[in-house]
């Protein structure tokens, strides 16, 4: 279908600090015992997109991700890994691999997306409108933040950052305005001519940009080339394209037009105009066309391009793993209500449970984990090869692989990374414990993030 898929499996994310490190990039964070990247790749595979380019920041992470993909998706996907320097942002990453992009349209998907929104639908919308960019919007999940009201103060500061202000045209097909969290605190500027052309704008703040974009390649490369400072697709490129959609630079629309003209060998320039006019008259004009016709009837003097929005239906699941809160939510949802995302719900050979140990619903126990007597596990995910002692209570938590938990520990709303050792009678509430950390016996933490000092 002439689409190239780029999975942006970025580098370190500040918001996930204790959970990620050099050796475990965020895309390898386990969600229900699968790295989060698995969900994206799986989703793409489902839609028959078997040729992917995965862009990873940093060489080490690249090797790590590459090894994992080749192990998991061998014979199923044709994946190419591109390692790019760190901290160049999503736009920078695309710029770096720009010369590999040859297809007509590019589908850029964030590697930390857990969703069941069909990429095909986004691509089809993009094609149908012949848009320059199509962004996927979905409703912001509400369940997570309200349900875990008790969770730590850390998340409160992050909440506003997750919202976007999105302006749509009345038919909800085109993006008129998009502003991401960071800019919202300032005044939001709207262009008058844009508003005038659209006539009516619907401003939504309950939508989330899922970071699944379809771009027209020529335009994307053009923008990336000309705007060196653009770092992020979400914060720079997409808002730029949306803002300039009615006064598109001549170059932007010039390229596709030139291509089209080249195709038509029969030289009836007059007829070409008529053909395009018949086609244009037959379709319901979007505000772009109306605006571009404005000055003198039919002559399309003003260059415009279209920025479309694909709005996922409210029933579909779509969350980005970009904060600890989101990480917890996704883990809970994937094991719970959104379990259809896991195609192969492989629960290894049933773990060894001690007597009177109860494992509640919406839980997941990895292969080879052992639990002592009288443990309680509720709404939690426990990774592979964990050893859990007796009288341990794990609620609303994520425990990764190779974790040792001593007797009598109580863990609530926490994330415990791989190779962590919790000694006896540790009480953790809303904590994040970094990889390889050792919590001494009897200690009690609340709302803290514990990590080993970098040596």
């Amino acid at each position: 279908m002439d689409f190239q898929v780029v999975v942006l499996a970025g580098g370190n994310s500040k918001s996930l600090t204790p959970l990620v490190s050099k050796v475990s990039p965020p895309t390898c964070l386990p969600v229900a015992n699968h790295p989060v990247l698995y969900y994206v790749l799986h989703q793409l595979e489902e839609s028959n997109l078997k040729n992917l380019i995965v862009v990873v920041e940093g060489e080490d992470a690249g090797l790590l991700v590459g090894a994992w993909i080749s192990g998991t998706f061998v014979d199923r996907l044709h994946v190419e890994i591109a390692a790019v320097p760190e901290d160049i942002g999503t736009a920078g990453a695309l710029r770096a691999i720009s010369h590999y992009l040859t297809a007509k349209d590019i589908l850029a998907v964030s590697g930390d997306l857990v969703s069941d929104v069909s990429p095909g639908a986004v691509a089809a919308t993009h094609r149908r409108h012949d848009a320059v960019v199509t962004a996927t919007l979905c409703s912001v999940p509400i369940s997570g933040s309200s349900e875990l009201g008790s969770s730590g103060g850390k998340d409160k500061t992050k909440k506003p950052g997750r919202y976007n202000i999105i302006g749509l045209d009345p038919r909800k097909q085109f993006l008129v305005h998009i502003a991401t969290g960071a800019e919202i605190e300032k005044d939001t500027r709207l262009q008058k001519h844009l508003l005038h052309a659209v006539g009516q704008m619907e401003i939504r703040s309950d939508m989330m940009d899922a970071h699944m974009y379809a771009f027209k390649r020529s335009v994307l490369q053009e923008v990336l080339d000309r705007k060196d400072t653009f770092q992020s697709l979400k914060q720079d490129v997409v808002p730029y394209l949306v803002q300039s959609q009615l006064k598109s630079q001549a170059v932007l629309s010039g390229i596709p037009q030139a291509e089209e003209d080249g195709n038509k060998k029969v030289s009836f320039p007059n007829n070409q105009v008529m053909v395009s006019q018949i086609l244009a008259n037959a379709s319901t004009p979007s505000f772009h066309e109306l605006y571009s016709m404005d000055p003198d009837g039919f002559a399309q003097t003003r260059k415009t391009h279209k920025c479309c929005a694909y709005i996922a239906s409210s029933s579909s699941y779509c969350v980005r793993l970009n904060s600890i809160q989101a990480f917890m939510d996704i883990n809970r949802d994937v094991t719970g209500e959104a379990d259809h995302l896991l195609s192969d719900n492989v629960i290894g050979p049933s773990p060894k449970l001690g007597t009177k140990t109860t494992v509640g619903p919406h839980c997941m126990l990895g292969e080879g984990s052992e639990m002592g007597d009288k443990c309680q596990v509720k709404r939690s995910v426990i990774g592979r090869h964990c050893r859990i002692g007796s009288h341990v209570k794990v609620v609303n938590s994520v425990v990764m692989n190779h974790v040792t938990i001593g007797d009598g520990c109580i863990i609530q709303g926490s994330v415990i990374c791989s190779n962590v050792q919790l000694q006896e009678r540790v009480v953790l509430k809303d904590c994040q414990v970094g990889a390889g950390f050792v919590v001494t016996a009897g200690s009690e933490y609340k709302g803290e993030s514990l990590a080993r000092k970098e040596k």
Partner: protein
Amino acid sequence: MDPRRTARTVSDPKVRQVGFFTPAPPERSISDPPRFQDPIQPPSPSPTQVNDHSPSGNSLSPVMIPPAHHHSDNFLRTALQVTSPTKAFSYSAKTVTIPPENEDVASSFSPGRKVVSAKSPSSFPGVKASSVPASELTTVSVVNLPPGISEKAGGASVEVQNDRPVSAKTLKEKTSKAERRALQEAQRAAKAAAKAEGTKASSAASKVVTSANTKPSKAAKSSSQKNDGSQVAASEKKGGDRAPEKDRKKDAPHPRMQYDDKSRVEKAKKRAVVKQTEARNRVELFRHLPQYEHGTQLPDLETKFFELDPMHPAVYKVGLQYLSGDIRGGNARCIAMFQAFKEAIKDYSTPPEKTLIRDLTARISSYVSFLIECRPLSISMGNAIKFLKNRIAKLPLALSESEAKSTLMLDIDRFINEKIILSEKVIVKHAVTKIQDGDVLLTYGASSVVEMILLHAHELGKHFHVVVVDSRPKLEGQLLLRRLVRKGLSCTYTHVNAVSCIMQDVTRVFLGASSVLSNGTVYSRVGTACVAMVAHAFRVPVLVCCEAYKFHERVQLDSICFNELGNPDAISKVQGREEINYLDGLVNQENLQLLNLIYDATPSDYVSMIITDYGMIPPTSVPVIVREYRRDHLWS
């Protein structure tokens, strides 16, 4: 000619109700000709087919001649085809040798439908990998498909048979007729054995029979079209190796499928690409037309975007645009389709062991069937497709692939330029002479030709007034009005319910048409008949502007047999006015049926003149144009 005379006496303006006849059964019988069963042909071994073909003996119309030729991709919805009897006889004479071969090849391939879908991913990486220079990118995971395509358990015997026609084909030039006959006998025996295994239920069997049934008539058609009488060439052309695409092509609902026939609808639905949920409450008279739950198709098709590998992106895009209503209007749809086909031909490369002529025809057919699923074809598109296929069939075998492709692309351009653009210009030239100063012109809906006429007359400095009559739900007239007003024409805008009031001031009525049928009936946007009738009552001349490529040899007396049903929601709701919700919750009620017709048929009595690229003609002269035009341009 006699039949038409009788038809015309029936359609006296005072007596006739346009489009709606109360006695439905006679109409039905016209619309219900035996579809796969050709009475002229020798009876084929299909008892199932005979059963479901309704007794059509009680038809009233003497015009009804059962269509002699059509197959699954026959976009011509020829109901009552005015074919000469000699032509029909030539079919029966020539069919005899051809069917066995086609039948065998067709049926031996048909059970293997799954094969293509399994094969498609393997072609995908190949294309993409070449486009991505993988020099610096490290490939970490590669799809290693097994060389053989995974077969279903039951497909083993099919596979064996698959090979044989292919090998036979390569030898075809050398084998004599007797040898081929022997080969066919062997194949048929093998097929019978395979069938006897009874792996598939009766549905599969009947499917095979169906395909076997349609093929001979198709081959017959091709052989009769080619009057040079070389049967071997004809059979080679049509026979054999359209296997990969053929199953796709069969997927399409037959253009004239009767949607009130439940078993067929079920079958068609199984094969459909577009998810088609039948609307539940359909108006009794229109049950034979397809009507789907609108709103479910588009999202479903969109999610399948990457899964339809054989579909060319351009074709897919056009299909989406049809489905979502982004492109409408006969000319625009035709142009869009042809431009998509041009793209597809440009990117086409003949697979190994295939010939371009056959494979490309099959591929175009599969595209067409996809487009039909998105929205039923218009008659103009049917004619255009016929033209294209004919061009492909007539390609000299000696041409290289690139030459053939460029020839075809030139042909497409030529068609768009000559048949659409140039004829529009000619029509404008003719029609402008009919506009005088002080005229009040009325038009209905938004026709591209009428718009050009009005604009051109305005440019010539004529002073006239335009009345744009519009109707819900599409309100296409508003777009036309917008463009006219912008150009400085003086306009009046009204809806069709006020047409009788405004008609007394009107001096001429200009109408566009989706098609003009050979009895002079104008098939056009719903409401046109009403406008024409009112104009007729007021003695206002009605001028129908229609390009000659939209003419069709079909005869249609009402707008029931062939029509298109739109989205019923469009008439039950008013866009932008939420407060009009009286029908909310009633839509699924058993005793409410919503009817949103797209087209209607205007009887020729109401039409004063048809303006076409061959000049201005009375409606009675349409058959002449159809006959001459076909001979000159389509079949040349």
